[in-house]
């Protein structure tokens, strides 16, 4: 008798709840399942989703990443700064922003893997550093005050656009990257190493896998995702301010955990995170639809997450009990048959 794996269970539960929420919102409001609303939801989901890809990768290695959103702000600001103060070509600016994103990842990797600072503290601190760099790079007016800079570049503006059928480019890129990362995690050597490092670091190291390399790769992937999110943020808003991206991280972490990732490492994948992101987005968007005060919105959406967590835990426990019981009874039967 095989036990069902915990993350599979959690994924099924969140998927079921996602469907239930969707049905409830569709029945109770008239605009929820409109094409406009769907594309709009998918667009919002994409920004969280891009960060969540990076966060999930880091969580699978047994770590965490609290700096992903702040790295988005930093990449945006590198772009805005260079755009405003230099005459570089767009390509060069984009490449330097990319470099910023990748370096943010490598720096995280350095602090976590080489300085051995626990992920939580490390990325909390590097997040502060990224925020600081964002402040330093911020565009200023004649009084020296920080202003946000409009980037009137048609190429960048196009990034914020959508296909004729209404789906935004950012959604497509997010979905593509989700699939790519899923393949990366499941089908490549490095992907396997990422799981191995998270689930059993000792064993992975005995197999000749470098902790430093795995952490570096995971954080660099997160840095890259921050860069991608940054470019689309610029495309969408045509600008950035010093607080860009600060709120993305907690949502991304929540989405990853709801999708089955565990802080202890080795669990979770992109499909789970995709479900988690959609769940969070549907919940948030759906709750907006009722005529509720902001207080009620907070209470309802928070309570639904709590209920889901409790249900998930209760169901898990129940299933575990049932499987052990079933196993015991099966053993009994097998013996009786002899």
């Amino acid at each position, binding site marked *: 008798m095989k036990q069902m794996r915990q993350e599979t269970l959690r994924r099924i539960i969140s998927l079921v709840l996602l469907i239930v929420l969707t049905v409830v919102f569709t029945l109770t409001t008239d605009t929820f399942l409109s094409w406009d609303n769907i594309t709009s939801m998918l667009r919002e989901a994409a920004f969280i989703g891009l960060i969540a890809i990076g966060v999930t990768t880091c969580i699978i290695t047994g770590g965490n990443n609290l700096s992903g959103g702040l790295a988005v702000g930093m990449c945006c600001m590198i772009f805005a700064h260079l755009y405003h103060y230099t005459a570089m070509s767009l390509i060069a600016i984009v490449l330097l922003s990319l470099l910023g994103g990748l370096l943010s990842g490598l720096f995280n990797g350095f602090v976590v893997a*080489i300085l051995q600072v626990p992920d*939580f503290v490390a990325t*909390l601190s590097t*997040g502060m550093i990224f925020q600081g760099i964002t402040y330093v790079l911020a565009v200023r007016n004649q009084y020296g005050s920080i202003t946000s800079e409009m980037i009137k570049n048609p190429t960048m503006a196009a990034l914020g656009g959508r296909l004729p059928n209404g789906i935004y480019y950012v959604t497509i890129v997010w979905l593509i990257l989700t699939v790519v990362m899923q393949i990366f995690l499941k089908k490549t050597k490095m992907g396997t190493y990422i799981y191995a490092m998270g689930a059993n670091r000792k064993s992975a190291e005995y197999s000749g896998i470098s902790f430093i390399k795995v952490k570096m790769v995971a954080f660099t992937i997160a840095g890259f995702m921050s860069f991608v999110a940054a470019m689309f943020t610029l495309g969408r808003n045509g600008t950035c301010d010093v607080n860009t991206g600060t709120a993305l991280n907690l949502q991304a972490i929540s989405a990853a955990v709801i999708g089955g990732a565990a802080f202890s490492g080795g669990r979770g994948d992109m499909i789970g995170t995709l479900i988690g992101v959609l769940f969070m987005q549907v919940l948030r968007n759906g709750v907006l639809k009722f005529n509720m005060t*902001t207080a*009620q919105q*907070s209470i309802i959406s928070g309570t639904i997450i*709590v209920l889901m967590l409790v249900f998930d835990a209760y169901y898990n426990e129940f299933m575990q009990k049932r499987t052990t019981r079933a196993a015991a009874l099966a053993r009994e039967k097998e013996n009786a048959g002899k």
Partner: protein
Amino acid sequence: MSNSVKNNPVVKAILGSSRILVLLILAVFFTIATKGTFFSYKNLVNILYSVSLIGIMICGACFAVLLGGIDRTVSGNAALSGAIVAMTILNKGVGGSNVALAIFLGLGAGVLSGLIHGLILSRFNIPAFLLTLATNEVLYGFVQLVTSNTLIYVNGCTLMDYIGQVRWLGIPIPVYIMLACILFAYIILNHTVYGRQVYSVGGNRQSSELSGVPARKVILIAYIISGFMGALAGFVLSSMNQQASAGQAKNYENNVLAAIVVGGVSMRGGSGSIQNAILGAFLIGVIENGMNLMGVPSIYKDMAKGIIIIVAVAMDMANQPGTPLNNLKRRLSKKAA
């Protein structure tokens, strides 16, 4: 260094914890950089005052972290309690019995919130990080309901004015409240059965349960303490501000957690101490105060804070064998020898 010096407990403590070392180095640096202003009585009081709220919250949240959990709701509890206290006094008046009722309701809300969290987290295997993230949102929803999103002013309440404005020996009352909370947490953790049980359940819940430790009750009480401390901080905050707002104390939980973790309390539970957690808060408080005194432009402050935290923690980690930095250190010392 002679052995007698080396064995001095104070010296030992300093050498043993890079955080104290970093703190001392920073203190000396800031003292020199500010020509002594940093080390003035007045400024030290300022530092104490600036960490007092966080300090009170740490005295609660620390219990959750020692049990391998996390409590992000300290801020929500603070906001809710502050709002309830202010609202009750606004509606009932500032008479003694009304204030007592207000405080009872405010702290009661914190205890109730802690009770609910404790019940859920002791019963179910749920990631506390995610749960308290969600419930904090719920708590702030309730704060909005209580305050209707307006500022609630508290005028003429003697007790709250006293807490907010009176100083003993030049030290504001919130500092004494924080010290009392630290003492409380220290005694609980170090001298009571409950404290022993916290460390034991944090280290190995199963074995503790089989030894007759009521693990669920231990977890439940931890979150109740955390809720109470959060609520107390909220009451102090409202006293300091003489008002309550729907967004007060927001994001304080991040500072609280940062301080606890920087203080070296393991997030896996079972190891760390309240002294170290408070030390973490002081490390962060001293950095902020020192930079304010030096007139460091605000844009560099975050960066400096991040770097100093990394350095402090990395130095600690470098003392553990097997890490790359430790290997480097050993290799260097070998070469030198």
